[in-house]
């Protein structure tokens, strides 16, 4: 019998803790499939954040570190510099990356660190119960923007892909979504391209992934997917923002 589908070797057998309809499990799988296909599991070191994916070190079947909130790019920088032939990825949420870890991500990008950042943008702090993040949309209600985010009070949502694409050190910056099969396939292609950019030593790479948090959005999983399409994609356009070619 021909085996046509199986769990990637780059994932462990651990049962994950994610809510129904959450995109983390899916994104983990896409990363793991890329690691399998590129045969890099044994030379990959992953760094997980503080947030819902804090336990990701239990789910990826490779060497893993757990970082302090926002600091994953600094940790990845040092490891990559000391072990330049390994693959480094950080897995970060929007509070971790765009708020408390803003300095670390901007400077890792500016230095052109040869690491791959998987940036999961679900517009809020998930693990702590749905507070406002730098990525929360205008008008969006969260537990700390209970009357809806207002520009005059909380400022504007941050577009990290656009911001980091302006750094010379960024070699590949892409924004995708995981709200339908076509976008899921595009996300996987983007992750693989980011790893390939790292392999070629071209510089910093990041894939920003628009993802669902049905629990904190107060939506069922299907409506959450639709919410990505209707609310996130118009503000956070999908596509490649920076593609540095080989010299």
């Amino acid at each position, binding site marked *: 019998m021909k085996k046509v589908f199986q769990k990637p070797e780059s994932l462990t057998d651990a049962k994950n803790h994610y809510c129904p309809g959450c995109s983390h499990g899916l994104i983990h799988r896409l990363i793991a499939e890329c690691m399998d296909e590129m045969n890099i*599991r*044994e*030379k*990959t*070191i992953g*760094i997980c954040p503080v947030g819902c994916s*804090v*336990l990701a*070190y239990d789910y*990826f*079947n*490779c*060497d*893993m*570190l*757990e*970082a*302090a909130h926002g*600091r994953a790019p*600094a*940790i*990845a*920088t*040092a*490891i990559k*510099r*000391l*072990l330049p032939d*390994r693959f480094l990825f950080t897995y970060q949420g929007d509070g971790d990356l765009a708020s408390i870890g803003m*300095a*670390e991500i*901007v*400077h890792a990008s500016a*230095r052109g660190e040869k690491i791959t950042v998987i940036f999961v943008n679900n517009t809020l702090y998930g693990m702590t119960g749905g507070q406002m993040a730098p990525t929360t949309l205008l008008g969006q209600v969260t537990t700390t923007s209970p009357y809806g985010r207002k520009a005059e009070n909380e400022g504007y949502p941050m577009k990290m892909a656009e911001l980091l694409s302006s750094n010379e050190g960024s070699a590949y910056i892409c924004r995708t979504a995981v709200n339908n099969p076509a976008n899921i396939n595009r996300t996987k292609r983007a992750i693989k391209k980011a790893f390939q950019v790292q392999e070629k030593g071209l510089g910093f790479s990041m894939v920003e992934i628009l993802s669902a948090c049905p629990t904190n959005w107060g939506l069922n999983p299907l409506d959450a997917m639709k919410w990505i399409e209707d609310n996130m994609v118009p503000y956070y356009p999908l596509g490649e923002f920076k593609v540095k070619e080989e010299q």
Partner: protein
Amino acid sequence: MERVLMKGNEALAEGAILAGCRGFFGYPITPSSEIAEYMARKMPKIGGVFVQAESELAAINMVYGGASTGARVMTASSSPGLSLKQEGISFISEAELPCLIVNVSRGGPGLGGIQPAQSDYFQATRGGGHGDYHTIVLAPSGSQEMMDFAMEAFELADKYRIPVMIMAEGTLGNIMEPILMREPVTKFSEKPWATTGCRGRKPNIVNTLHLGNEELESRNHQLFNKYQIIKENEKRADAFLVEDAEIVVVAFGIMSRIVKKAVIEARKKGVKAGLVRPVTLWPFPDEHIRTAAKNARLFLSVEISMGQMIQDIQLALAGRVPVEFYGRIGFTPNPEEILQEIMRLAEREGL
């Protein structure tokens, strides 16, 4: 070996390199910057890594990452910078990652000044960041020890899987003294826990999260069992003329050299003074203090602070002998004023 004239900060940096340090991650701050500058010059020539981080936070987290590869890595800063690093030091302590953290210390609180000070004693010896933990803290007293302690720090760090801190007053970083160069270290221990890619083995995880009640408690006990072993093995102090001393002065770092002069002068005036110099600030050499208390009528803690180590001396003596304090901040007490204080106390006690 040849004798060379070296600035304390550079002697420390060279000592680290001789010990096999191949990763330096730092942020500029007076009076520690010469360490980063020395590393920036040297690391590219010896196949090492130098990164000027965007912040002290990033620097200490680079140390977290670097140490997790099993490489010998370090950072250096000064007091306000050490405050910023505390988050990372807590994580590094829990993850049991060996590394060297240097504090070429200056006065505070706040931005304070750039005068040498010892007022980070509590921060250094009590853990400094959140949670229950300790780092080994070594206090050198001259350029030679800046080099030697840097080398020793890496050995201790690897032996116990613990961050080791060198606390040196700004003076030590910046004075130049002739030192004997040391031989480079060639033997390093295996680090099977390092996250280097899992080829041929099960994945390694460097983590500080322990969500279960029992798991968290047992992790803390594991750490404290290790700290107990360190306390049993690594307390160090130098004693000078304490055998018959009636006034025992306690001072560390550069201060201990200045006090020594005052003790010699006091002896000439017929006062039986002695000196205990803690070499390890944590673990604190409490047994050395008690041994020196044999004939003591009183102790005197001399510090470049408002009085911090005095608490450890009091704890060590448990009320058996009174402990006086003399300290300044912004200035470093000179031998004359310490002598004056010893003579004043001797007269008061009828010694």
